[in-house]
């Protein structure tokens, strides 16, 4: 059971709503990862969870810790900032590696130069 039982009821509902929508977005992104056909389509799918899904869960976490500790707890923002900076970097690098490999192997799947 949760330790923070002194949270007001509306805050609990806000936290749960934000977390649920964030995890639904992450799930949608992962379903896209399985369902989509080509790599260049698939590479878009997980960003759904990495941007808005992550932001919603971080906001829920911020609200939870700020209310249960009784002060402004901004440490979860660190994860948000870090992921916002790193997600485009990783996915651009990965997409470039995939394009390079496809061109070297002469796959017609690769986008034109």
């Amino acid at each position, binding site marked *: *059971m949760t330790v923070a*039982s002194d949270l007001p009821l509306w805050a609990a509902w806000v936290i*749960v709503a934000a977390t649920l929508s964030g995890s639904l977005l992450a799930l949608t992104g992962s379903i896209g*990862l399985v369902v989509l056909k080509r790599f260049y389509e698939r*590479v878009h799918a997980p960003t759904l969870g990495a941007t808005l899904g992550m932001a919603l869960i971080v906001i829920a976490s911020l609200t939870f810790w700020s209310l249960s500790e009784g002060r402004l707890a901004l440490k979860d923002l660190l*994860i948000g900032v870090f992921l916002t900076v790193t997600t485009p970097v990783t996915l651009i690098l990965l997409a470039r590696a995939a394009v390079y490999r496809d061109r070297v192997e002469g796959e017609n799947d690769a986008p034109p130069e």
Partner: protein
Amino acid sequence: MSASDVLFWGLGVAQILLLLAMLMAAGRMVRGPRAQDRVLGLDTLYLNAMLLILVQGMRSGVGLYFEAALIIGMLGFTATVALAKFLMRGEVIE
């Protein structure tokens, strides 16, 4: 329904959703078909695990889970960049 009940059950459902998302990502990682698909699956797996641990921190009220989530996020970033570099050049550090 008290606030702790709402948090316990609501965040539990969110954790199940994230666990399903992790399973999907793991499925893509196992199935491939090519190396870049596997790396993408691993990246998504890392991300969903990080979110799962953040939610677990809220659910249990233990602040230490934040550090675990931060470390997983950083390791995931490094691992994916290194793997992408490896796919591109055949070596990580030139």
